[in-house]
């Protein structure tokens, strides 16, 4: 981690103040992410995660340097409301914001969408947030973690349909 930051701080000294904030916040986010998941039960033995060794992959990957300046979003896609299955919503996903300028246009001949953005179709998915963060850090991408929303479903009971209510009924239940 410190390695990465040292490199970043040095390499990007020329950038604007905005980026300094950015780096700090990146560090903050990732340090937070390394804490243990909150929903562990108290009885369980929590093994601390092994410190992740971040290899600076972007200097040796040969990926264009432009990529380094494109913030990625790390998030857990929400369940598709059209379906009751929760598929795809357990994984963490990294994707890139579209480019307003050269992102997509309609091909004048066929009407298909063309794109100058080689990352527009890229969508990476990871088992955990930590994996995603690790990958983004390794690639030197600035990232933004979108928090997962907490689902709050009250206990439900079939018998509630038939509960006697002493005051005026506010709903007439049906099937």
């Amino acid at each position, binding site marked *: 981690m410190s390695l990465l930051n040292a490199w970043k701080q040095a390499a990007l000294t020329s950038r604007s103040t905005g980026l300094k904030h950015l780096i700090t916040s990146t560090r903050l986010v990732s340090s937070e992410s390394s804490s243990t998941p909150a929903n562990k039960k108290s009885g369980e033995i929590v093994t601390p995660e092994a410190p992740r060794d971040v290899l600076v992959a972007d*200097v040796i990957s040969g990926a264009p340097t*432009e990529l380094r300046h494109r913030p990625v979003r790390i998030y857990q896609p929400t369940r598709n409301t059209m379906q009751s299955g929760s598929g795809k919503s357990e994984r963490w996903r990294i994707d890139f914001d579209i480019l307003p300028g050269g992102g997509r246009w309609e091909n004048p001949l066929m009407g298909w969408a063309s794109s100058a953005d080689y990352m527009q179709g890229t969508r990476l998915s990871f088992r955990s947030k930590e994996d995603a963060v690790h990958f983004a850090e390794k690639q030197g991408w600035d990232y933004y973690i979108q928090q997962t929303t907490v689902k709050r479903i009250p206990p439900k009971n079939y018998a509630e349909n038939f509960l006697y209510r002493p005051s005026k009924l506010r709903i007439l239940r049906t099937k």
Partner: protein
Amino acid sequence: MTTIPSRLARPTQLSASITDARKRSIQLYRDWYRSAPEIVQLYALNVSPAYVRHCIRERFEANRYVTDQRAIDVLLLKWRQEYQETVNCWKQRDHVEGILLAPQHRPQRSFLQKFYEGRDEDAVRPAATGAI
């Protein structure tokens, strides 16, 4: 022009320490530096050896702050390979001119220029738009 495949080949090597890595990178740089005139001659480039050296220097400077020894090893390997390919004339002229000696820095453009052009910010310039 025929070459011996093993010419300039080096076995893969892991640096023992950061000092070792430093020594090896200086050695690599020195090799590149010394063969600059040869590269110019070999590919009949229309530039001076000093320019080649300048470009090489730029490439090395870009990675000056890499401190991860594993990354340095990979970089050393890659650039050693590159060196071998270049000096053995396994490349075409375009590879050398267009990639190795291509200028790294784009001209600075003001916000307004970029805005008028309708391109995205420099940092996120899509490669295929072809704009420099």
